[in-house]
Protein backbone atom coordinates (compact mmCIF):
# COMPACT_ATOMS: atom_id res chain seq x y z
CA UNK A 1 0.00 0.00 0.00
CA UNK A 2 1.02 3.58 -0.12
CA UNK A 3 1.14 6.24 2.51
CA UNK A 4 -0.95 9.31 3.12
CA UNK A 5 0.59 12.62 2.08
CA UNK A 6 0.80 15.75 4.18
CA UNK A 7 -0.04 19.38 3.34
CA UNK A 8 -1.79 19.51 -0.11
CA UNK A 9 -3.09 16.02 -0.70
CA UNK A 10 -2.08 12.40 -0.75
CA UNK A 11 0.93 12.85 -3.07
CA UNK A 12 1.46 16.61 -3.33
CA UNK A 13 2.63 18.81 -0.51
CA UNK A 14 3.41 22.48 -0.19
CA UNK A 15 5.63 21.84 2.82
CA UNK A 16 9.25 20.64 3.04
CA UNK A 17 9.32 16.91 2.45
CA UNK A 18 9.68 14.79 5.58
CA UNK A 19 11.99 12.03 4.41
CA UNK A 20 11.95 10.23 7.77
CA UNK A 21 8.18 9.98 7.58
CA UNK A 22 8.44 8.64 4.03
CA UNK A 23 10.84 5.93 5.22
CA UNK A 24 8.55 5.05 8.10
CA UNK A 25 5.67 4.68 5.64
CA UNK A 26 7.38 1.89 3.69
CA UNK A 27 9.21 0.14 6.50
CA UNK A 28 8.10 -3.32 7.54
CA UNK A 29 9.78 -6.38 8.96
CA UNK A 30 9.74 -8.38 5.74
CA UNK A 31 11.24 -5.67 3.54
CA UNK A 32 14.98 -6.11 3.54
CA UNK A 33 15.82 -3.41 1.00
CA UNK A 34 14.72 0.22 1.05
CA UNK A 35 15.72 2.79 -1.55
CA UNK A 36 15.09 6.50 -1.23
CA UNK A 37 15.43 8.90 -4.15
CA UNK A 38 15.45 12.64 -3.60
CA UNK A 39 15.30 15.12 -6.45
CA UNK A 40 16.80 18.35 -5.17
CA UNK A 41 16.82 21.84 -6.61
CA UNK A 42 20.24 22.54 -8.04
CA UNK A 43 21.94 25.26 -9.98
CA UNK A 44 23.82 24.19 -13.07
CA UNK A 45 26.49 26.39 -14.61
CA UNK A 46 24.28 27.80 -17.34
CA UNK A 47 21.38 28.64 -15.08
CA UNK A 48 22.79 31.79 -13.53
CA UNK A 49 21.81 32.86 -10.03
CA UNK A 50 18.91 30.47 -9.50
CA UNK A 51 17.72 30.92 -5.94
CA UNK A 52 14.73 28.63 -6.03
CA UNK A 53 12.41 26.74 -8.33
CA UNK A 54 8.69 27.29 -8.24
CA UNK A 55 6.63 24.20 -9.01
CA UNK A 56 3.06 24.50 -10.20
CA UNK A 57 0.72 21.61 -10.79
CA UNK A 58 -2.65 20.74 -12.21
CA UNK A 59 -3.38 19.62 -8.69
CA UNK A 60 -6.34 17.33 -9.21
CA UNK A 61 -4.77 15.54 -12.16
CA UNK A 62 -1.33 15.35 -10.52
CA UNK A 63 -2.92 13.66 -7.52
CA UNK A 64 -4.75 11.23 -9.81
CA UNK A 65 -1.76 10.52 -12.03
CA UNK A 66 0.69 10.04 -9.14
CA UNK A 67 -1.82 7.68 -7.56
CA UNK A 68 -2.01 5.71 -10.81
CA UNK A 69 1.78 5.57 -11.01
CA UNK A 70 1.98 4.23 -7.44
CA UNK A 71 -0.70 1.62 -8.20
CA UNK A 72 1.15 0.52 -11.31
CA UNK A 73 4.37 0.12 -9.32
CA UNK A 74 2.58 -2.16 -6.88
CA UNK A 75 1.19 -4.20 -9.77
CA UNK A 76 4.72 -4.65 -11.11
CA UNK A 77 6.33 -5.33 -7.73
CA UNK A 78 3.54 -6.84 -5.60
CA UNK A 79 5.70 -7.37 -2.52
CA UNK A 80 6.95 -3.80 -2.49
CA UNK A 81 5.67 -0.80 -0.63
CA UNK A 82 6.13 2.66 -2.12
CA UNK A 83 5.70 6.22 -0.98
CA UNK A 84 6.19 9.41 -2.92
CA UNK A 85 5.78 13.13 -2.43
CA UNK A 86 6.07 15.95 -4.89
CA UNK A 87 6.40 19.44 -3.57
CA UNK A 88 4.59 22.42 -5.07
CA UNK A 89 5.28 26.09 -4.55
CA UNK A 90 8.69 27.67 -4.12
CA UNK A 91 11.47 25.19 -3.31
CA UNK A 92 14.83 26.77 -2.36
CA UNK A 93 18.17 25.60 -3.74
CA UNK A 94 19.28 22.37 -2.09
CA UNK A 95 15.87 21.28 -0.91
CA UNK A 96 14.01 18.27 -2.24
CA UNK A 97 11.24 18.80 -4.76
CA UNK A 98 10.41 15.11 -5.07
CA UNK A 99 11.00 12.11 -2.84
CA UNK A 100 10.38 8.46 -3.55
CA UNK A 101 10.80 5.56 -1.14
CA UNK A 102 10.54 1.95 -2.25
CA UNK A 103 10.91 -1.03 0.05
CA UNK A 104 10.83 -4.70 -0.93
CA UNK A 105 11.89 -8.05 0.49
CA UNK A 106 15.04 -7.91 -1.66
CA UNK A 107 17.01 -4.94 -2.83
CA UNK A 108 16.74 -5.69 -6.56
CA UNK A 109 13.04 -4.87 -6.55
CA UNK A 110 13.53 -1.82 -4.32
CA UNK A 111 16.08 -0.39 -6.75
CA UNK A 112 13.97 -1.26 -9.79
CA UNK A 113 10.76 0.19 -8.35
CA UNK A 114 12.49 3.37 -7.21
CA UNK A 115 14.02 3.92 -10.65
CA UNK A 116 10.78 3.16 -12.46
CA UNK A 117 8.81 5.51 -10.23
CA UNK A 118 10.97 8.58 -10.76
CA UNK A 119 11.06 8.05 -14.52
CA UNK A 120 7.26 7.78 -14.63
CA UNK A 121 6.78 10.83 -12.40
CA UNK A 122 9.03 12.87 -14.67
CA UNK A 123 7.31 11.62 -17.80
CA UNK A 124 3.67 11.91 -16.72
CA UNK A 125 3.03 14.22 -13.79
CA UNK A 126 1.28 17.45 -14.88
CA UNK A 127 3.75 19.63 -13.00
CA UNK A 128 5.78 22.56 -14.35
CA UNK A 129 8.72 24.51 -13.00
CA UNK A 130 9.94 28.04 -13.13
CA UNK A 131 13.43 29.16 -12.10
CA UNK A 132 13.47 32.15 -9.79
CA UNK A 133 16.68 34.18 -9.86
CA UNK A 134 18.34 35.88 -6.91
CA UNK A 135 18.47 39.08 -8.94
CA UNK A 136 14.72 38.90 -9.53
CA UNK A 137 12.96 37.61 -12.60
CA UNK A 138 11.95 34.10 -13.51
CA UNK A 139 12.10 31.71 -16.43
CA UNK A 140 10.04 28.65 -17.26
CA UNK A 141 12.15 25.51 -17.56
CA UNK A 142 11.74 23.58 -20.81
CA UNK A 143 9.69 20.47 -20.24
CA UNK A 144 9.03 17.33 -22.24
CA UNK A 145 5.72 16.37 -23.78
CA UNK A 146 3.57 14.69 -21.14
CA UNK A 147 2.07 11.33 -21.87
CA UNK A 148 -0.03 8.76 -20.20
Amino acid sequence: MWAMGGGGGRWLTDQPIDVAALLADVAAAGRGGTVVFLGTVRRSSEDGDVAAIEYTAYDAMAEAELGRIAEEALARWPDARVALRHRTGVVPLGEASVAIAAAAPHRADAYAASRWLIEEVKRRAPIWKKERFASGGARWVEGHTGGG
Partner: protein
Amino acid sequence: MSGGGAAGGIRVSILLFATFAEAAGRDRLEAVLPDGAVAGDALAFVRSQPWAGRLPPSPALAVNLRYAKPGLALRDGDEVAVIPPVAGG
Protein backbone atom coordinates in the same frame (compact mmCIF):
# COMPACT_ATOMS: atom_id res chain seq x y z
CA MET B 1 -26.95 9.73 -20.08
CA SER B 2 -24.49 12.16 -21.65
CA GLY B 3 -25.56 14.11 -24.68
CA GLY B 4 -25.64 17.86 -25.00
CA GLY B 5 -27.18 20.61 -22.92
CA ALA B 6 -30.72 21.81 -23.40
CA ALA B 7 -29.72 24.02 -26.34
CA GLY B 8 -27.50 21.35 -27.98
CA GLY B 9 -23.75 21.36 -28.08
CA ILE B 10 -21.23 20.16 -25.54
CA ARG B 11 -20.30 22.42 -22.63
CA VAL B 12 -16.72 21.96 -21.45
CA SER B 13 -14.30 23.74 -19.17
CA ILE B 14 -10.83 24.19 -20.64
CA LEU B 15 -7.94 24.65 -18.21
CA LEU B 16 -4.66 26.23 -19.23
CA PHE B 17 -1.33 25.96 -17.40
CA ALA B 18 2.20 27.29 -17.26
CA THR B 19 3.51 28.73 -20.52
CA PHE B 20 0.14 28.25 -22.16
CA ALA B 21 -1.74 30.14 -19.47
CA GLU B 22 0.87 32.89 -19.53
CA ALA B 23 0.70 33.24 -23.30
CA ALA B 24 -3.10 33.22 -23.21
CA GLY B 25 -3.33 35.60 -20.26
CA ARG B 26 -5.83 33.35 -18.52
CA ASP B 27 -6.03 29.91 -16.94
CA ARG B 28 -9.56 28.83 -17.67
CA LEU B 29 -12.31 29.23 -20.22
CA GLU B 30 -15.73 27.77 -20.76
CA ALA B 31 -16.77 26.65 -24.22
CA VAL B 32 -19.77 25.17 -25.97
CA LEU B 33 -18.49 22.91 -28.71
CA PRO B 34 -20.56 21.31 -31.49
CA ASP B 35 -22.08 17.88 -30.94
CA GLY B 36 -19.51 15.24 -31.81
CA ALA B 37 -16.59 17.41 -30.67
CA VAL B 38 -13.39 15.69 -29.64
CA ALA B 39 -10.55 16.71 -27.34
CA GLY B 40 -8.54 18.18 -30.21
CA ASP B 41 -11.44 20.51 -30.98
CA ALA B 42 -11.08 22.05 -27.52
CA LEU B 43 -7.45 22.88 -28.28
CA ALA B 44 -8.41 24.31 -31.66
CA PHE B 45 -11.03 26.41 -29.91
CA VAL B 46 -8.36 27.87 -27.62
CA ARG B 47 -6.03 28.59 -30.53
CA SER B 48 -8.82 30.34 -32.44
CA GLN B 49 -9.54 32.88 -29.70
CA PRO B 50 -8.65 36.48 -30.49
CA TRP B 51 -6.58 36.72 -27.32
CA ALA B 52 -4.67 33.52 -28.12
CA GLY B 53 -1.72 35.22 -29.73
CA ARG B 54 1.18 32.86 -30.20
CA LEU B 55 0.69 29.79 -28.04
CA PRO B 56 3.42 27.19 -27.50
CA PRO B 57 3.27 24.19 -29.86
CA SER B 58 2.58 20.56 -29.11
CA PRO B 59 0.72 20.41 -25.82
CA ALA B 60 -0.75 17.18 -24.59
CA LEU B 61 -4.42 17.00 -23.68
CA ALA B 62 -6.25 15.67 -20.66
CA VAL B 63 -9.95 15.03 -20.16
CA ASN B 64 -11.35 14.53 -16.66
CA LEU B 65 -7.91 14.17 -15.06
CA ARG B 66 -6.56 11.61 -17.57
CA TYR B 67 -4.34 12.06 -20.61
CA ALA B 68 -6.44 11.87 -23.76
CA LYS B 69 -5.78 11.51 -27.45
CA PRO B 70 -7.03 14.37 -29.64
CA GLY B 71 -9.69 12.06 -31.07
CA LEU B 72 -11.35 11.31 -27.72
CA ALA B 73 -15.05 12.19 -27.86
CA LEU B 74 -16.14 14.86 -25.39
CA ARG B 75 -19.28 14.81 -23.28
CA ASP B 76 -21.26 17.61 -21.71
CA GLY B 77 -19.58 18.79 -18.51
CA ASP B 78 -16.12 17.43 -19.31
CA GLU B 79 -13.04 19.16 -17.94
CA VAL B 80 -10.41 19.46 -20.66
CA ALA B 81 -6.87 20.57 -19.87
CA VAL B 82 -4.13 21.71 -22.20
CA ILE B 83 -0.92 20.24 -20.82
CA PRO B 84 2.28 21.99 -21.99
CA PRO B 85 5.50 19.94 -21.83
CA VAL B 86 5.85 18.79 -18.23
CA ALA B 87 8.81 19.34 -15.96
CA GLY B 88 8.02 17.62 -12.68
CA GLY B 89 10.20 15.20 -10.76
